[in-house]
C-alpha cells in the first residue's frame, strides 16, 4: 500500500499497515548512515522548515540531518513563547512560513493539538515532532524500528513503559502504535503520574506505590531501573529503551543506561532513518521527485 496522508500528526490516526509502511521505509534508508557520502537526491528541491516552539536538541538535529541526507533544503525556525504572550501568534507565524511555500513543516510545540492546528491551516505537509503531552509519532516509530531490529517481530511482545506517563507524549504515541501492532503495553509508575482512564487507550496499569512521590530519591528507589530490579523482574533478553534525555541515577541507573540491555543509542541512530522515511513519504506524496 502507499502513503496517502498529507500529514503525520498522531499514531492514533494510523492503522497497522501505515505504521509498518513507515517502519519499512525507514529500515530501507538506514544504510545511508553508513555510506561514505551520506546524501541521496530524493528530496532535492524540496524545502523543509523545522518550526520548533520548544527547546529541543536531539529531535531537531535528527530531523535536520534526515532532511539534509535526502538533499532537501532545511531551515530551522526556533520560536519561543506562546500566542498569548507579546508578538506574533502561532497561527500568524505559521501562515507567514506557509507563504514561503515549504513542502514540509516539522513542528514541535508545548501545546497539545498544535500540529493538528497547523495541518488545518496550512496546505503543506505537517510532521508532528511533539505537541504538548499529546503525541510524538516519530519517536514511537523509531522505537518500533529499534524493537523490530532487535526482536525480529512485534506480535506478542510485552512492553513496560515506566515513569511519568501523565505528561508523556512519547508514552501516548507508543501505546497507540504498539497496541496496533499486537504488542501488550503496561504502563507503570506512581499513581500521580499515571493519567486517568489510560486503560481505555489499551494499556494495562501497574501501581506499586500508593501515593505521590515526595522526592526524586524516593522515585529512584521505587521506580528507577537498576540492574538488580532487572535481574529480578525482567526477561534476560529485555531491551531498555529511553527517548532521552535520561535522568541518570533517577530513571535509569548508569549501569542500566550504558549496559548490555540498553538500546538507547540505537534508538537515536534509527531516529534519523525514521525521519528520512517520514519526510520521503510526505514530500514525495504528490508524485514529485521523492522516491
Amino acid at each position, binding site marked *: 500500500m502507499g502513503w496517502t496522508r498529507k500529514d503525520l500528526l498522531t499514531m*492514533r490516526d494510523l492503522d497497522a499497515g501505515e505504521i509498518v509502511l513507515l517502519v519499512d521505509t525507514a529500515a530501507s534508508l538506514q544504510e545511508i548512515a553508513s555510506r561514505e557520502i551520506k546524501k541521496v537526491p530524493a528530496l532535492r528541491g524540496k524545502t523543509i522548515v523545522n518550526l520548533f516552539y520548544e527547546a529541543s536538541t536531539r529531535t531537531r538535529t535528527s530531523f535536520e540531518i534526515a532532511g539534509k541526507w535526502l538533499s532537501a533544503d532545511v531551515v530551522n525556525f526556533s520560536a519561543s513563547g*506562546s*500566542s*498569548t504572550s507579546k508578538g506574533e*501568534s*502561532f*497561527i500568524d507565524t505559521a501562515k507567514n512560513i506557509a507563504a514561503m511555500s515549504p513542502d514540509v513543516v516539522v513542528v514541535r*510545540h508545548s*501545546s*497539545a*493539538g*498544535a500540529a*493538528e*492546528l497547523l495541518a488545518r491551516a496550512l496546505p503543506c505537509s505537517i510532521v508532528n515532532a511533539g*505537541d*504538548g*503531552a*499529546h*503525541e510524538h509519532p516519530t519517536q514511537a516509530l523509531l522505537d518500533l524500528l529499534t524493537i523490530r531490529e532487535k526482536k525480529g517481530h512485534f506480535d506478542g511482545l510485552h512492553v513496560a513503559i515506566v515513569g511519568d506517563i501523565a505528561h508523556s*507524549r512519547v508514552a*501516548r504515541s507508543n501505546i497507540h502504535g504498539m497496541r496496533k501492532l499486537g504488542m501488550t503495553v503496561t504502563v507503570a509508575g506512581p499513581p500521580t503520574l499515571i*493519567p*486517568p*482512564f*489510560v486503560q*481505555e*487507550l489499551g494499556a494495562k496499569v501497574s501501581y506499586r506505590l500508593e501515593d505521590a512521590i515526595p522526592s526524586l530519591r524516593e522515585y529512584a528507589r521505587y521506580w528507577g531501573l537498576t540492574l538488580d530490579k532487572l535481574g529480578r523482574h525482567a526477561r534476560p533478553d529485555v531491551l531498555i529503551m529511553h527517548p532521552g534525555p535520561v535522568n541518570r541515577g533517577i530513571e535509569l541507573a548508569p549501569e542500566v543506561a550504558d549496559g548490555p540491555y540498553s538500546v538507547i543509542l540505537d534508538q537515536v541512530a534509527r531516529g534519523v532513518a525514521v525521519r528520512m522515511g517520514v519526510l520521503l513519504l510526505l514530500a514525495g506524496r504528490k508524485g514529485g521527485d521523492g522516491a
Partner: protein
Amino acid sequence: MRLVLRGGRVIDPANNLDAVQDVLIADGKIERLGRNLSVPADAEVVDANGKIVCPGFIDMHVHLREPGQEYKETVATGTQAAAAGGFTAVCCMANTSPVNDNGAVTDYIRAKARVEGVVRVYPIGAVTKNLRGEELAELAELADAGCVAFSDDGRCVMNAELYRRAMEYTLPFGAPVISHAEDATLSRGASINEGVVSTELGLAGQPAAAEDVMVARDILLAELTGAHVHIAHASTAGAVRLVRDAKARGVRVTAEVTPHHLVLTEDAVRTWDANTKMAPPLRTKRDVEALIEGLTDGTIDCIATDHAPHALSEKEGEYDHAAFGVVGLETAVAVLLDRLVRPGLLPLATLIARWSRDPARLLNLPGGTLAVGAPADVTILDPDAEATVEPSRFQSRSRNTPFGGWTLRGGPWMTLVGGKLVHRASS
C-alpha cells in the same frame, strides 16, 4: 398602542396555563387573555397560530463585556443577540474592565442599557474588589445602584471566610450570592475535564471534584449564614446531588445549568475546536444525564447561557492558550428545543418555566409570567422553524459557538419587551 397575539398556544407555568389563547397587550402590560378576544380597532394583530407564546425568557448569566472589552461585545450588540435569541432580560456579570465593583460602574451599565439596550439589563455586582478575592466590594452601594445579585463569576472566591462574610453582609439586600464553584487549586492549568479525553489528547484536565468541593463548601456556608447562594453553571453529577440534598434539608441554594453542558460532552474536545473550551469544562455523559434529571425535577432552578463572547484571535490558536467561554444567546433556545424537548428528554413547559418563571422568582425580577398586569415581556417560539446555525449572521459581536453548522428545529420567533417588538425571525 395595543397589540393582540392571536391564536397562539400560551404556556405560562406561573399560572399553570397551557391553552390556545389570545393575548391582548396594552401600555406595555398584559391586559387580557382569553379565547377569541375582541380586537380593539386600533390594535395591531399578530397571527400566532402554531406558535408558542411564553413569558419573556430571562437569561440570568451573560457577559456583555462593556465597559472595557467592547471588541468582544457591547450592551447594544449583546442585547440585540439576546432579543434575537428570544430573551427579554439578561443579567450581566461583573467581570468587565473596570470591574463592576462599585456603583459608578453599575450606573454606567444601566445608562448604556437605557439608551442602547434592546432588552432589559440587570447588572450583577462583584463580591470582591476587582475580583481579587481579597476584600469585599461595596456591596450595599452596588445593591442600591441596582445590582440584582453578587458574583465574582469567572473566578472562585477561594477564601471561605471572606465568602462567608459576603453572604452575611448581603442578607438584608435579598439578593443572592452567585458562586462560580471551582476550586482553583484543583483546576490549576486545566483546559478541559479530567477524564479519558484529557488523557488521550494530553491536555491538562480538572476533575469534577474541583466543582463539587466548592459546591459543598458554599452549601455549608449558606447553611451557616442563612444566605441564598446560587450555583452558577452546574456541570457535574456531584453538584446536582449536593444541591438536591441541600434543598431537601431546607438550605437556601439554587442552581443553573447552561445549554452547552446539557447537550455536549468532553468528546467534543476531540475536534480541537477551542469553542469547546469553557469553565466549567464539558463533562461526561453521566454528568449530562444528571443535569437533565436535575433540571427536570427542579433541583436545578433555571437555564442560563453563560454567554461569553471572545474575539476570533482569542479562540483560533493553541487550545490550551485559548480563552474560556462560548457565546450562547442566539443558539440556546433552538439547541434545547431540538436536542432536549423534541426527543422528549425535557417537557416543553419545564423548559419555559426554567427560563422565565424560575429566574424571575429567584432574583425577584419583574416578569416571568403572562398574568394580567405583568409587563408584556413575551417570547414566542416557532416549534417548526428549521435553521442551520450560521455564526457569521449572529447579532453578537463574537462568533465563538460550538454549535456552528448544527441544523436545529424549533426556535425563537418573536420577542417583545414591554409590549414592544424587539425581534422577529426573518423566515
